[in-house]
């Protein structure tokens, strides 16, 4: 009985581990990635400037990255432990980016003060 249970569990685990997913899921993600790439190319084509342009670029970039991570890299089907272990540390990078952006603005103003009268 116990042996049978272990055997069943093994079968279940292997099934989860080997990532079987329908072909249509991959094809839809693939198609969506093409569409999003065309859209981000169109952002460059359109004469948008400033925050609307940067916002759209960032949005499309994050959508593409999310699709690749979630479906091509199978993140959507993994357990929460590995998802958090991979996705939370890069949050520190966002903080780092913020710090450097603030510092960058300061450096720029200092340089301009030396250049301008």
């Amino acid at each position: 009985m116990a042996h049978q249970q272990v055997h069943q569990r093994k079968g279940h685990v292997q099934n989860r581990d080997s990532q079987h997913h329908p072909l249509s899921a991959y094809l839809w993600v693939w198609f969506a990635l093409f569409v999003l790439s065309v859209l981000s190319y169109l952002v460059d084509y359109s004469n948008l400037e400033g925050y609307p342009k940067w916002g759209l670029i960032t949005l499309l970039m994050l959508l593409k990255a999310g699709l690749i991570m979630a479906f091509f890299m199978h993140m959507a089907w993994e357990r929460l432990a590995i998802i958090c272990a991979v996705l939370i540390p890069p949050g520190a990078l966002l903080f780092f980016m913020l710090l450097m952006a603030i510092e960058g603005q300061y450096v720029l103003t200092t340089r301009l003060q030396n250049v301008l009268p």
Partner: protein
Amino acid sequence: MAYSAPSGAPLEPGLRGMVDDFSSDQRAFKDVSWGKVMMWAFILSDIFIFACFLIGYMQVRITSTAPWPIGSEVFALEVAGAHIPLLLIAIMTFVLISSSGTMALAVKYGYERNRRVTALLLLATALLGGTFVGMQVFEWSKLIEEGVRPWGNPWGAAQFGATFFLITGFHGTHVSIGVLCLFIMAVKVARGSLETGSPGFLTGRRGRYEMVELLGLYWHFVDLVWVFIFAFFYLW
């Protein structure tokens, strides 16, 4: 990589499952093989490297008092007399996304033990990756011809060349290594090494179809990095 708890209790899903996993004995990542955990650890470290390069690029672009060269003009291509901005980069993006799609399908057919299709898809992925590198070589030589150097360029801020060559060069190196591994994996799949579990010539590890998935993780990561480079370097 079958995990069996001493109690034989089924794994909890969701948040409760995560708390259980992290507070458990011996291993935190249930249902995930060590190979996959290690590949993710490598990818995470690579994310930090690329992010530091991109943040450095952001920093020099913010602080530069000279105007930054306009991407859609620098990377434009003359085709039949017409001036098309970012044409080469757009094609490169589509080639890399296509290769990501063929890679995802290769992983799927690998787990279905479809040797022929898996090998062909891996080969297609490698060829698309090779095409990408080839187009990058063309882009580099064109820019070098126009006078872009790591220490200066004809259009503006001197740091443009330094960040461009560093970031795209590092990414191109990743693609090249990936292409090499893809060719090796295609041969391994085609001759049936993953089915028979024969040891590899370098590490001696037994062949498993999970190897295709791990290589796939690396390849998708390379595509992922290109998504960020495309947005921050070429479109911004």
